[in-house]
């Protein structure tokens, strides 16, 4: 367990901290379809909170309920301690950055950013100052007089961000903010977003289906499935200690082996997974009851591959190389065990043209320590 040091930002571990947003038993139905199912959730001020899940899992509905475009069917949402039920979107101190950016095509970049400020009856000179500040923050100074169709996709994304931040909302909602950008630009923009979030101190709630994006930007991630939250954790813990096969599989690559769990001494558990094979040895805390059907989950990069059997590993199994995916920095080996299970092992290509010694059809050893994987019971 990581130590909660004083300078680490983790209000969710502080029982005295007051959440900015509270979802209390919120349910949303569209006809017979349940989009959000009895959901309870706290989000704290200055968090960068990611809602992650496949399309149709309800993450967008949650965001639209926060913005005021959808009402709850039952339950209560409060922002800063105030119940926002029935408050229309134009009366909420919440702004949203839309997936399509939703820039006003007939207004210039400057007018787009000033739009919200004019609605709030701010004095003219203050509007100008604020818009200039936003243009500087998003490096758009030179484009102020352009129309949205006269700027590039990446610049449009920044205009949308500047526009939604201009009113200095308590909470900024971002709906797949980087979905329309190509991969290279997306990675640069992720860091820019984090930078801006830190500078402005605004609470960000981001909706995404891209796990890498969520891992990069978020302070906490909520993994959603069919209207329910499966797990809420920091990116590192989501990756290292997923609470279910669904989360383990959704975030990154994983090997799953099913078997019967039997606890031994000192937190060690055996998983009997196939006839005639020695059990997988793994740690679990707290202990799991004898005879439970469980799933052993291990990330490919934690599985070592070698020609000879390593002496010091708790788990070692022999198999045959089926496929090698060479990705440049790493290679992924697909190894078939005699039982028919296919296990993926990943190795870093730290030397040029290294590991030539392992090739297709070779018999190899896969090995891992007793703490490399975890046992999941759901």
């Amino acid at each position, binding site marked *: 367990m990581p130590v909660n040091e004083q300078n680490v930002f983790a209000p969710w571990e502080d029982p005295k901290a007051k959440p900015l947003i509270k979802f209390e038993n919120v349910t949303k139905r569209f006809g017979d379809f349940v989009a959000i199912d009895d959901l309870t959730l706290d989000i704290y001020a200055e968090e960068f909170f990611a809602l992650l899940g496949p399309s149709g899992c309800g993450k967008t509905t949650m965001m639209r309920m926060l*913005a*005021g475009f959808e009402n709850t069917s039952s339950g209560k949402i409060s922002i800063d301690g105030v119940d926002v039920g029935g408050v229309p979107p134009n009366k909420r101190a919440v*702004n*949203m950055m839309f997936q399509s950016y*939703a820039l*006003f095509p*007939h207004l210039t970049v400057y007018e787009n950013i000033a739009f919200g400020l004019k*609605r709030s009856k701010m004095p003219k000179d203050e509007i100008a100052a604020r818009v200039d500040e936003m243009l500087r923050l998003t490096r758009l100074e030179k484009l102020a007089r352009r129309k949205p*169709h006269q700027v590039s996709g990446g610049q449009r994304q920044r205009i949308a961000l500047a526009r939604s931040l201009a009113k200095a909302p308590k909470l900024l909602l971002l709906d797949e903010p980087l979905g329309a950008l190509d991969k290279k630009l997306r990675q640069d923009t992720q860091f820019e977003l984090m930078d801006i979030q830190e500078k402005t101190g605004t609470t960000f709630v981001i909706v995404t289906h891209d796990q890498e994006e969520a891992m990069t930007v978020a302070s906490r991630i909520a993994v959603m499935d069919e209207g329910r939250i499966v797990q809420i954790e920091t990116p590192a813990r989501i990756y290292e200690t997923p609470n279910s096969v669904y989360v383990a599989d959704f975030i990154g690559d994983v090997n799953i082996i099913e078997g019967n769990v039997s606890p031994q001494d000192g937190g060690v558990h055996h998983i009997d997974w196939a006839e005639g094979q020695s059990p997988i040895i793994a740690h679990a805390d707290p202990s799991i009851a004898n005879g439970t059907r469980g799933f052993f989950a291990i990330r490919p990069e934690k599985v070592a591959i070698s020609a000879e059997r390593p002496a010091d590993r708790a788990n070692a199994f022999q198999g045959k190389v089926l496929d090698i995916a060479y990705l440049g920095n790493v290679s992924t080996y697909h190894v078939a065990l005699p039982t028919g299970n296919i296990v993926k092992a990943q190795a870093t290509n730290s030397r040029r043209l290294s590991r030539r010694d392992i090739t297709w059809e070779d018999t190899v050893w896969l090995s891992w320590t007793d703490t490399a994987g975890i046992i999941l019971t759901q």
Partner: protein
Amino acid sequence: MRRFSWFNATSLTLGFAFLYLPMLILIIYSFNESRLVTVWAGFSTKWYGELFQNEAFLDAAWVTVKVAFWSSTFATVLGTMAAYVLVRGGRFLGRTLFSGMIYAPLVMPEVITGLSLLLLFIAIGMDRGVMTIVLAHTTFSMCYVSVVVSSRLASFDRSVEEAALDLGCSPFDAFRLVTLPIIAPAVISGWLLAFTLSLDDLVIASFTSGPSSTTLPIRIFSAVRLGVTPEINALSTIMIGIVTVGVVTASLVSKRTMTHRAADERKAEQNDKL
């Protein structure tokens, strides 16, 4: 590989010849000296002169333009409202009936629409005149306007309106400041369509007009029944000319904006790469 063969070239040539030759002949013979319309007797513009002295035609033209202006304006307002209700209105009591009433006049034979409106005006004891034609034209052209506007409304990204609400607009301000400017081109073409339909209508106007409110199509129709006359040729040429100039200008303007826009977009993407 583009399969543009002699066959395609022939079909286009013949097709457009079929579409345009009759009108071209009409235009040429409007400059014919002779009253016998099928015999060419030299160039003359005298029928245009006679046309502009024909009080009956001038009066009818004035009535027609008045009717077309007012009915297309009312139709644009009502049709835009109807389109907004259809596309953004959500559910309400009688929505099916409402959309049925919008689409039905588009496929209704004009004789039936005209007959039914006339029977209504008689039943409520309304005197027939410019007013009744305006009411009748507004009713059927608002349906065309609402079809044009609603297809534009349906195709534009709804989140643009939501963004306006999100930034503090009331629903009415969002419509005024964001939706209306975006759909303006469709509203304008709706108005033009309504104007043309009204200008063009013979059947419904015949049912709903009174003795003092003869429109140009009604005049033309009664003249045409007696056969081809050079004055009608001249009048037709003027009408074809106005429409051609209008349509060609409109399509050139829209082509220019589209090329400009495409060039802007290309430039913008290049800027990003620098």
